[in-house]
């Protein structure tokens, strides 16, 4: 990865950075959602009561770049441990919270399929949309295995246009938007707004190599303490997207949090797909020519 960055950016290349989101210490305060919206001038995306625990944000999208998921479960937080005599049954109830974000994949589907070059990889190894280039073709939207990036539409219900639009002096929008990992802040040597605002260090920002080591140590500790279901998600480079730039420590299967269990970048199959497309094109010519064998009538 870093060698790729060096090849592209030369001396301007930076160590690859990312997030380690440790959900075991998330308290669901949503400071990350708010800090992200404020710093990046992300418009309102509707105010609805979902009845889904404390989650009224529901999913990542063009106007939501951090999303805190809340899961209420009839499962114990820790597995029973015969070495510790608690004297009481552990309460079979836990409340999982997870701050989701763009994964900044090593092999990013959105970036691969973008036909304008609007999506690009920065000198920090992150994946960012250039909004002055995007023409809203929408190909990146179904190409993301995580459903992160989306085309921006604005709620028309409220009378006044959102404040962000007034500040940006724009008629919105038709383009796609997602987390930039606060590219502007990185350029000035600051950490992203969500990590800065996180009060429990559930969102940790840093060099990816270091974050991975830190995550390994954290997982070891939680497993030693018999936390139920503790696992890392997106840490390893041998997964279908070559590892996430923003990876997670989860306490249950990924799909419980609305994450795909085995994400694969669509372009992984592209060589085979191009071959098949070329063969089909050849077959079309042969088939059509064969139709002329019976004469003109």
């Amino acid at each position, binding site marked *: 990865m870093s060698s790729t960055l060096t090849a592209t950016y030369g001396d301007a290349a930076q160590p690859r950075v990312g997030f380690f989101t440790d959900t075991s210490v998330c308290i669901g305060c949503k400071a990350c959602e708010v800090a992200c919206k404020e710093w990046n001038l992300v418009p309102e995306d509707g105010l609805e009561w979902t009845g*889904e625990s404390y989650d009224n944000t*529901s*999913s990542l*999208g063009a106007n939501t770049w951090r999303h805190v*998921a809340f*899961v209420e479960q009839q499962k114990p937080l820790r597995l029973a441990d015969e070495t510790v005599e608690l004297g009481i049954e552990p309460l079979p109830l836990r409340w999982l919270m997870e701050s989701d974000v763009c994964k900044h994949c090593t092999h990013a*589907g959105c970036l*691969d*399929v*973008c*036909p*304008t*070059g*609007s999506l690009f990889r920065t000198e920090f190894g992150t994946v960012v949309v250039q909004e002055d*280039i995007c*023409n*809203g*073709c*929408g*190909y990146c*939207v*179904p*190409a993301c295995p995580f*459903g992160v990036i*989306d*085309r921006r539409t604005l709620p028309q219900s409220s009378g006044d246009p959102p404040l962000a639009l007034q500040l940006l002096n724009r008629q919105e*929008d038709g*383009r*796609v938007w997602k987390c930039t990992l606060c590219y502007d802040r990185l350029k000035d040597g600051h950490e992203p707004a969500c990590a800065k605002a996180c009060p429990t260090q559930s969102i940790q920002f840093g060099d990816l190599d270091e974050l991975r080591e830190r995550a390994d140590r954290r997982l070891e500790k939680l497993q030693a303490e018999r936390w139920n279901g503790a696992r890392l998600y997106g840490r390893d480079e041998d997964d279908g997207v070559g590892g996430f730039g923003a990876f997670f420590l989860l306490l249950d*299967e990924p*799909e*419980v*949090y*609305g*994450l*795909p*269990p*085995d994400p694969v970048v*669509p*372009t992984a*199959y*592209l060589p085979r*797909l*191009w071959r*098949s*497309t*070329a*063969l*089909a*094109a050849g*077959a*079309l010519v042969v*088939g*059509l*020519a064969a*139709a*002329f064998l*019976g004469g*003109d*009538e």
Partner: protein
Amino acid sequence: MSDSYYGRPIVKQPVWKPEVAVYFWTGGIAGASSVLHGVARLTGNEPLARRALFIGAAADAVSPALLVSDLGRPERFLNMMRVFKVTSPMSVGSWILLVSGGASNTAAVLELLGILRPVKRLAELVAFVSGPPLATYTGALLANTAIPVWSEARDELPWLFGSSATACAGAAATIATPLANAGPARRTAIGGSVAALALSATMEHRLGFVGEVYRQGEAGRYGRIAKACTAAGAGLLALAGRRSRTAARVGGALVLGGELALRWSVFRAGFQSARDPRYTVEPQRERLARRADASRGAARPPA
């Protein structure tokens, strides 16, 4: 039944407008018509060649308009020409459409004016070469996504769309060409229809659990319309298309309509499969289970 987050989708539904599905149809007609035109010219079937050229050029001219109107920022459509990316079927396809549309329209205009014969021949050659990929790349475009019912059909979609395009080009030319010259177009329409019917059945069967969206909702409804119209049209062409111009026209129209319904069915199936997280999770769970089995097998000491 797999777990999910309040039943919410994992992958996003496409944001494409209906124009995109219509473009799959017009682009297919354009691409396959260029080939039909080329072969007709080579075999000296001038009436068919002329008609296929004009049909292809018209479809090629409509296609970019459909695509531009789908863009969130139509005024920036030229940004498609900033780069050429082999990792993006849409980028490759934009260039193919540019070349094919430019060539077929140049050839059509020169044919009408009856001037610049060598330039026209060159344009016809370029259209002939760029036509087939124009007809099949749209299958790759859909398959190269995270939408379960599209990505899992990666082995069929380019073939299905190529067959559908062939059927349509044949059908359109059958409608326009006098009986004495329409034979190759009619056989093209029949052959393409049979191939498209077989391929869509194969695709739906092989998709297994994910393929059930083709039996539900809009995808199911339009899929049934597609099969009925295509089969009826191809049957009519085979039985009476050689003798009756009316039968040729009705049969051709049924095939064209059926194949438009097919594109719409495939298009909507993508939206339907994105909406339900089970279609995303279960194939991935199966993949993980297969991989776990394989690694257990590898770890076992040789007997």
